[in-house]
């Protein structure tokens, strides 16, 4: 089983240094690209590989790049989205701390493909160690001639900057990220225009997830067919999966795209802790619908999880056990989303705190059946298209599925006028 993204990350957890990275073939893809391929050819190759974005939405990366106008003057930008603030998600951290040059090489190739001259790593505030590692890696890459003017002696120039954030989940939404990079409030922008056409400072911009970009060198070296062959299913490549919650061995693993949920939970995460029963799981971070034990054999790829009624999202799963209150669980999520709403559009700004208050009332024994109806209604009203960006619809996914799968728990809260679970 190949693990292109993580195989070279030292087990000690220390970052792979430039020399070490080069020793295992690092930057050979960049060399090859600059020598042999035109920017268009790079994009075509990524398209061939059918690489789908790992930031949550699963949009074709090659396709995204191909929307960047190539015959324009003025700057273009490439941004690695290293904000990773979706609760339950910790996959990019692994790549950032373990193999920074792999990301940089991917970024340089991506920048070449769209002919950007400036790149940013937008990293969340909390990743202090990753920030240090990335700072060092960028400096080393400059020294080695992978960044700056005339990269590897070719007529290609790229500057790279690390930007660390100051909080707010919204910064991960790509257009809000752009506003934040411009020094503004991280509110999202309307699409169209898409960032590919009018992004950072109104210039063509590509935003890709860290994991997405880290694949690029490998795809350049080994080609699309190889990439597709890594996977068990039609969605190419490997995927970093993670599991947290009350399992025996929480963690993250790079596995072929399409492993089953059962394999992940039982083999890799070691099953539930003693005495606990599995009740459900958010398969791809906080903004995905619950799946339950009926779905254990779902193949964890974009199509598979979607068919089961949820989203692959970030591929990092949060497990709900039978001694954790699902209402409390969802309350925690909605509290997060309500706090992190940017406050720009009405349904999200006002609707999320309302759901949060209802869930808290339920937990405190003050909930009513009318409240349950109100929750249900909100899951419809805050759906995609109704709000300005995807935050609120994402927030409704766990709620709507909780109402579906754990209905009896909600009702018991109303009936008993208290939370039936032992409090944490």
């Amino acid at each position, binding site marked *: 089983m190949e693990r292109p993204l993580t195989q070279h990350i030292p087990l000690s957890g220390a970052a792979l240094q430039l020399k070490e990275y080069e020793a295992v073939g690092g930057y050979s893809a960049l060399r090859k690209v600059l020598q042999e391929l035109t920017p268009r050819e790079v994009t075509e190759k990524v398209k061939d590989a059918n690489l789908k974005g790992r930031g949550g939405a699963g949009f074709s990366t090659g396709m995204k790049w191909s929307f960047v106008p190539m015959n324009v003057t003025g700057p273009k930008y490439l941004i690695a989205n290293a904000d990773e603030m979706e609760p339950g998600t910790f996959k990019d951290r692994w790549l950032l701390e373990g193999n920074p040059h792999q990301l940089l090489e991917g970024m340089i190739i991506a920048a070449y493909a769209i002919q950007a001259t400036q790149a940013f790593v937008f990293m969340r505030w909390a990743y202090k160690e990753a920030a240090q590692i990335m700072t060092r890696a960028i400096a080393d890459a400059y020294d080695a001639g992978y960044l700056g003017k005339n990269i590897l002696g070719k007529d290609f120039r790229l500057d790279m900057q690390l930007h660390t954030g100051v909080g*707010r989940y919204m910064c991960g939404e790509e257009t809000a990220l752009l506003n934040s990079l411009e020094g503004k*409030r991280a509110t999202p*922008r*309307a699409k*169209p*225009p898409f960032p590919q*056409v*009018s992004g950072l*400072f*109104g210039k063509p911009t590509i935003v890709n997830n860290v994991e997405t970009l880290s694949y690029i060198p490998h795809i350049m070296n080994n080609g699309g067919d190889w990439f597709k062959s890594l996977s068990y299913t039609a969605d190419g490549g490997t995927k970093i999966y993670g599991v947290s919650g009350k399992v025996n061995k929480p963690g993250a693993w790079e596995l072929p795209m399409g492993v089953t949920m059962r394999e992940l939970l039982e083999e890799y995460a070691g099953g539930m802790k003693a005495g606990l029963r599995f009740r459900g799981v958010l398969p791809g971070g906080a903004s995905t619908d619950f799946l339950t034990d009926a779905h254990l054999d779902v193949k964890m790829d974009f199509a598979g999880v979607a068919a089961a009624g949820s989203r692959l999202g970030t591929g990092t799963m949060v497990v709900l056990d039978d001694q954790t209150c699902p209402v409390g669980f969802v309350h925690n999520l909605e509290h997060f989303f*309500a*706090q*992190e*709403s*940017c*406050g*720009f*559009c*009405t*349904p999200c*700004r*006002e*609707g*999320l*705190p*309302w759901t949060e*208050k209802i869930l808290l*009332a339920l937990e405190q024994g003050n909930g009513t059946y*009318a409240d349950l109806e*109100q929750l249900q*209604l909100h899951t419809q*009203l805050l759906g995609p*298209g*109704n*709000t*300005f960006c995807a935050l609120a619809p994402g927030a409704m996914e766990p709620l709507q599925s909780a109402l579906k799968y754990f209905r009896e728990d909600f009702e018991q809260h109303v009936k008993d006028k208290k939370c039936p679970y032992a409090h944490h």
Partner: protein
Amino acid sequence: MPIINIDNKNYEVKEGKNLLEACLSLGLNLPYFCWHPVLGAVGACRQCAVKVFKDADDTKGRIIMSCMEPVKDQLRMSIDDKDARSFREHVIGWLMINHPHDCAVCDEGGACHLQDMTVMTGHSYRDYHFTKRTYNNQYLGPFLNHEMNRCIQCYRCVRFYKDFAGGKDLDVFAAHNHVYFGRQQDGILENEFSGNLAEICPTGVFTDKTLKQHYTRKWDLTSAASVCQGCGLGCNILAGERYGAVRQITNRFNAAVNGYFLCDRGRYGYEFVNSDQRIKTPMVYHGPAEQSNGIPILDHVHRRMVPGKTIGIGSPRASLESNAVLKELVGADNFYLGVSAADHDLVSLSLRLLRQGPVRAASLQDAAAADVVLILGEDVTNTAPMLALSVRQAVRRMPVAAAQQQVHLAAWQDAAIREAVQDDKGPLFILSVQETKLDEIAQGAWHTAPDNIARIGYAVSHLLNDAIPEVTGMSEQGRDIAATIANTLKTAAHPLIIAGYGGGSEAILKSAANVAWALHDLGIDAMLSFTVPECNSVGLEMLDGHRLESALGRALNNGIDTAIILENDLYRRLNQHSAERFFSNIKNVILLDHLYNATAEKATVILPAGTFAESDGTLVNNEGRAQRFFQVFAPTSAVQESWRWLLQVAAVCGHTTLSSLQHLDDVVKYMATTYPQFDGITTLTPDAHFRLAGQKVPREPHRYSGRTAMLANKNVSEPKPAEDEDTALSFTMEGYRGEPPSSMIPFFWQPGWNSVQAVNKYQVETGGPLHDGNAGKRLIEPNVNGHTPFYTEVPEPYLPLKEHLLLVPCYHIFGSEELSIHTPGIAARMPAPYLLLHSEDAKRFQVTEGHLLHFMDNGHHYTLPVIINDTLQQGVAGIPVGLPGMQIAEVPQLIKV
């Protein structure tokens, strides 16, 4: 034109609009908050949701925000769709979660867009049962009240204040459901257009504080279409009255003039109408007329009108009617323009340039559409505030057009366009005596003495047309500036040249005309905008009369017994010394005015004149647009229009022409037949006989309440309502309920639309002209065929002189205008008198900031505290104009210190 299908009906709509605009333009009701016709769409409130369908077979459809979706041929949509309706209703539900539900005590109540939209969506039952979040309110100065708990977070306030008007001190703070709109700390909102927040805000967060101080429900106001008296631009206003006091001024939409907005002087400067300085009764020798031996007041006037020795002094702040009647009464030989020499020279020159030259005067909306702007010698924000707002829009024009090309979006896609535009600005060049507020958006701003400004203007025009002589002795920097400006102007399609009274220099005006005319000769559609000091400066100048100084001369030669002074304080026109000499050399002063002033002290007879609120009349603005203002209410005192007083005097005198005139229409007709330059003013508004369905147009909405009870504390039987014999308006709520002609709309109201946003319903399309066109009529048009020779007398450069300073005028939006300072809030924002000095000059005269500097002008002593300002050229000193207590100084003028 594209066809769209709305709820299974086809409609032809305009290309380039969004669906919300299309629906509203069709007269359909669709609720909205964050969208505004001039601010565009950002999709924040989610109130305007509709469903769109892929095709006729698609029954499911999807919800979209109509304000964010461009019109597309064959698009199918539904307003009435169940899901869309339910969503819209819930949007109101969310907006009301934390709203205090305090309509009963809210100033906006009954004229509130949020109330209207709530009713429109059918939201009536509150599901939310948790506690409300509350905010602290801020002190925002004398103009606006702040009640943040009523906020629905539509972001309109910041988008207007910051993005549109260039304000700096209002913003949005915090995030999620804590977002807060206000200042960083309590304090006065600084922007000159802050008052528009009261209309921009769809609920009661920002409300008019002056209204609050004498509050009346908006539906209880008696209102009329009027024209702002604050400056020479003639913005259209609605004035509302109750119990004999004007209570608020709001915008009256005019697509060619002020659009949706007003400046703060215009909006708040009305309180002189209610001032306790008002003259309410006729007076003789400072006493009430009745005590004057029982002689009727008109006889007092008549007796003093010695034939051949009676003159009339007109006024630029009085109506055309009053001035024309006075001129007729005293005879053209005896009619003097009541303006200072400088103002007369500048305004009459402006008028000449606009009439004789080939270049048209720009309306405010033309100005906003200019692609290159050159300002010569003018601090527009302070001399013609709304023109500054137009310039701000003009500066956006080129970059927005470029961005639209780049991102293929309509201009209403506000956020996206702003993002693509970034800080790009179209070319604006400013030459002024000191820094101005618009400098921050200018591509180039230079500060120098008026003559030097004119020299640059001449140099620019020379570069455009070498029939104009080269300016000799120009510095290299001056040459560079001129070249930059000329080269940019040459690339323009609709360049605008602004100059006016603020620069105090005829040479500047001539150089401005030269530039515009030279551009015209190059085949470029150039425009001119000349600012003028007062609301009827141009009208008075068009009427024509002798200079005020010649009245002084005549008085000194014993040529005058009696002066009839129309709405004027001569102490603001002549320096104190001259004014004193004038008054001491005539026997009788008959004053028609509405406020006590220094001239009233000299009056032998005073006739209480109506302010704009008590009068009908016509004004001509700086572009030559004649506009009618209507009486708002019938005063209970002896106050009446000056022209009516004068007609009554004429009747007593047996004046042949005037005796036959009685009503407004008579005077208007008289003017149109007597003066060819006023041809056309009879069609400004329908005449007094006009009726709609046999009815007059009511000044009061049919919701007007309490009429029978209003004066019940004095007399239980309701007095007979006043009758308006001059116009087709009635003073009550009785009358035609539909839409009146646009020139006489007293208030905007339509079923379901009680707020100012009802204006949508009166427009041909959202943001477009009113149904029967824009009110007003331009009386001067350029002489496109003739060719006026260019001006060639380039002034000498101004260089600092030893022991001397060149005094130049500084104007203030709050303070320089005579009447508006009677509003306490405006008075509070008025600067104290000062002398502006360059630091080198301060050194030269051994003073520092705050020190008093002494000088003399025309025998008058000035002692003024120094303010250092290094944006002045050395050797130039600025003094504020028009502040109370400031003597009039003839500026620009060289003084010895």
